[in-house]
C-alpha cells in the first residue's frame, strides 16, 4: 500500500481563476481521507490532479516517495470511482471490470478469477453478463466500485461516488464502503460535500474552502475543535450557533454581553480571553450544547419559533430578533411553538472565535 504526499500544489484555470491555491497534505498508508467542502472549493480539482486528469500549475505529488506529477494517469497505480460512475455502456459488467486487467496482459484465467472475486466483494456476482443499461443506479455504482477495486490500486480515489444515489441507499453504501476499506486496506481519498458522509467514513477529514485547506483532523477534531467559524458552521446538522458578544473582564469572572443575555464565565479557565478585554468576540455553541433549564437558572429566556421532530431527537428553533438559534433536545422534551423557555449553555463545550480573523481562540486549559 502507499503514502501520498501533496507538496505545495496549485491549479490555475485562467488568469484570475484558481482551482486550488495552495495545498499541502500527507496521506498515511491505509488511511481513509475525506476531502470536504462546499462546491467550488477545489476538492474535486485536487483529486483530479492526483489522478493525473488535470495538470498541476505548481507543486509536486509524491506517491510512495516517487514523483508522479507528470506521469500519465495509467502509470500512476491509482484507480478512481467517478461521480456519474463512468462505466462503459457498450461493455458488459464483466468486460468493464476486466478492461484494465486485459490491458495489463493478465492471463484469461487470472482475469476471470480476479473479476469474480471482486464482483463477489461488492455483491454483483450474478450481474456479470448484463450491460450497464440494464442495471439500477445502485448496481452501476457497485460495478464502478468493482472496476476500481479489481486493479488492486496503490491509491483509491472516489469523487462524490454516493451523490447520485437515493438517501437510503447512500447510507447503506457508506457502511459497505467503509467495510470494503477495512478489508482491502487501500489508501483512499474520498471527495464529498456531505459532511455527515465525511464524519461517518473518514479517518481524517480535510476541510477546504476557496482552494485552500481550512482544517485537517479527525472527525472529532473538526467537530469539537473546529479551527474557525467556517468549519464550525459547516460541520454538524444543524450547524453551530454564533453569538457576537462583548467581552468584559474582571478579576473573578468574565462577562460576555450579548443584546439578549449576559453570560458569566470563570476567568481562570478562560485566561486567554484577557487580550480581548472590551472587544467583541464570537461565541460558538453547538445545538446540543444549548440546554433548556428552569427559568430561575436560565441565562436568558426566549420564545420557541418552530419544533422539528426528527424521531430520535427534536430540533427547536428560537427566534432572537436578528438571528434564529437552533438547538437539539431529546425526543421526550415537550415544547411547542410560542412556549417561553429558559436557556443555558454547556460551559465545557462552548467555543470562542476571533471576530476579525474568524479563527478559534485556543485555551491551554482544555476545550
Amino acid at each position, binding site marked *: 500500500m502507499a503514502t501520498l504526499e501533496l507538496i505545495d500544489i496549485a491549479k490555475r484555470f485562467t488568469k484570475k481563476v484558481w482551482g486550488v491555491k495552495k495545498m499541502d497534505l500527507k496521506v498515511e498508508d491505509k488511511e481513509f481521507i475525506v476531502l470536504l467542502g462546499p462546491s467550488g472549493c477545489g476538492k474535486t480539482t485536487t483529486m483530479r490532479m492526483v489522478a493525473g*486528469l488535470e495538470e498541476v500549475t505548481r507543486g509536486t505529488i509524491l506517491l510512495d516517495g516517487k514523483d508522479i506529477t507528470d506521469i500519465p494517469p*495509467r502509470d500512476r497505480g491509482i484507480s*478512481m470511482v467517478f461521480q456519474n460512475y463512468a462505466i*462503459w455502456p457498450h461493455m458488459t459488467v464483466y468486460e468493464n471490470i476486466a478492461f484494465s486487467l486485459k*490491458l495489463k496482459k493478465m492471463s484469461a484465467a487470472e482475469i476471470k478469477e480476479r473479476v469474480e472475486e471482486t464482483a463477489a466483494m461488492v455483491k454483483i456476482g450474478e450481474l456479470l453478463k448484463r450491460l450497464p443499461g440494464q442495471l439500477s443506479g445502485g448496481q452501476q455504482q457497485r460495478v464502478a466500485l468493482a472496476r476500481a477495486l479489481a*486493479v488492486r490500486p496503490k491509491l483509491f480515489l472516489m469523487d462524490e461516488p454516493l451523490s447520485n444515489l437515493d438517501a437510503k441507499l447512500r447510507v447503506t453504501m457508506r457502511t459497505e464502503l467503509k467495510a470494503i476499506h477495512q478489508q482491502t486496506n487501500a489508501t483512499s481519498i474520498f471527495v464529498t460535500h456531505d459532511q455527515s458522509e465525511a464524519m461517518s467514513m473518514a479517518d481524517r477529514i480535510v476541510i477546504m474552502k476557496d482552494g485552500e485547506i481550512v482544517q485537517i483532523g479527525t472527525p472529532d477534531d473538526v467537530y469539537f475543535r473546529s479551527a474557525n467559524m467556517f468549519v464550525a458552521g459547516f460541520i454538524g446538522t444543524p450547524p453551530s450557533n454564533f453569538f457576537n458578544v462583548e467581552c468584559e473582564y474582571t478579576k473573578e469572572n468574565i462577562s460576555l454581553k450579548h443584546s439578549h443575555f449576559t453570560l458569566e464565565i470563570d476567568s481562570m479557565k478562560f485566561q486567554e480571553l484577557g487580550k480581548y478585554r472590551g472587544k467583541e468576540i464570537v461565541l460558538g455553541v453547538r445545538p446540543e450544547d444549548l440546554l433548556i433549564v428552569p427559568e430561575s437558572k436560565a441565562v436568558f429566556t426566549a420564545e420557541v419559533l418552530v419544533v422539528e421532530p426528527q424521531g430520535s431527537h427534536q430540533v427547536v428553533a428560537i427566534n432572537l430578533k436578528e438571528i434564529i438559534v437552533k438547538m437539539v433536545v431529546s425526543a421526550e422534551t415537550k415544547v411547542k411553538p410560542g412556549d417561553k423557555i429558559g436557556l443555558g449553555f454547556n460551559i465545557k463545550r462552548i467555543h470562542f472565535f476571533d471576530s476579525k480573523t474568524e479563527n478559534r481562540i485556543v485555551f491551554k486549559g482544555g476545550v
Partner: protein
Amino acid sequence: MNNAIKRQLKRSAKRSSLYIVLAGIAFIIIFPIFFLFSFSFMSDYETYSEWPKPLIPSFKANFMIDKNSEGYHLLIFNKSEDKYMPFGPLVFTNSQEDIDNLRKFIKLQSNSKITSQKIMEYLKIVDSKSRVEFSIKKDLLANYILFFQVVNGAPKAVLNSLMVAGATILISLTIGGMGGYAFARYFFKGKNILKLSVLFVRMFPAVSLAIPMVIILAKMGLYDQPLGLSLVYSVGQISMSIWITASVFMAIPVSLEEAAMIFGTTRAGAFLHVTLPLALPGLAASAMYSFIGSWNEVIAAVVLTQFNPTFPVVVYKALVGSQGQINLITAGSVAQALPAIIFTLIIRKYIIQMWGGVKV
C-alpha cells in the same frame, strides 16, 4: 356545463382545422412524390392511353384476341374506357414473323411478357371458339431495367456516383470528425464563432463558383474525375460533418474517456476503446448525410464533368433530352431518389438532434 361543452367544441374545432391544414400541406408535398413512384411502374399504354391515371399502377394487363375474315385482332382492356380497345397491329396472321412482332409489341407497350408458344395456343383456341380473353402479369421493374439499358452510360454513372460519394464520405468524415471532436471536447476562445463560421462555405451557390472551380480542378488535373468532384463536395460536407459529429461526441461523457485513461489506456486508446464504439451510430449517420449530399448533387456535377458524369447528371440529361416516355424517366428519377430517401429516414433522429437536441 354549457360553457364546458362550448369550450370543448371550440378546442376540437381548432384542432381539426389545424389538422386539415397540416394534411393539406402534407398532401402537396407527398402527392407529386407518390405520383413519381406510381408512374415509374406504369407501362407505356397505361401512361399514354388511359385517363384519368390510376393512383396505383396495375399488376397485370388483360388482353383479348378476336378473329374475323381479315385475320386475328389483339385488344387490350382499357380501364378508363372500361372496355377492350384495339392494341397493336390491326390485323395479324399466325405466321411466325407476325407472332414474334406481336410478342415484342406486348412486351414494349404493356411491360408484360408472353412467349410465342403461348400466343400460338391462344390462337388455336380462337380458331375453335372465335375469341379468347387472357391476362398477363406485368413486369413491374421493366421501366427500371429499360432505363439502364437505353440511357447511355447510366450503369457507369451509378458507379461514378458511388465513387464520388465514397471519397466524399472518407474525406469529410475524417476531417469533419476530428473537427467535431475538438469542438465537443475543448474550450477555447472564439469557439462558437468558429463553429458557426464553418458553415459559411455553404452559403455560396455552386453555380456562382462554377468557373473558378473548373479552372482550379483543371489545373489540378482533376477535371471530369470522380476525385475532383468529391473534393468539391467535401468542402460543404465537412462543415455538416463537424456539426453532426460534434453533437455525437458531446453526448458521450468525458468521464468515460477519463476512466479509460485511468484504467490503462493512452488518450488515443481511450478514444479507440470507448468513444469510437459509442459514437459509431452517429458517425454512420454523418456518413450517410455526406452520401446524400454527394449523391443528390447535380449542378456542380453538370459543370465539372464531361465524359464521366454522375448518375443525377445522367437522369437530368435524360429528362431534358427525352421526347415522351415519361414512365421511363420517372424510373430513372426514382432510382436516383430512393437511396437518399432511405438514408434520410435512417438518420432523421441525428439530424433533428443536431439542431437542438429534440429526441424523436
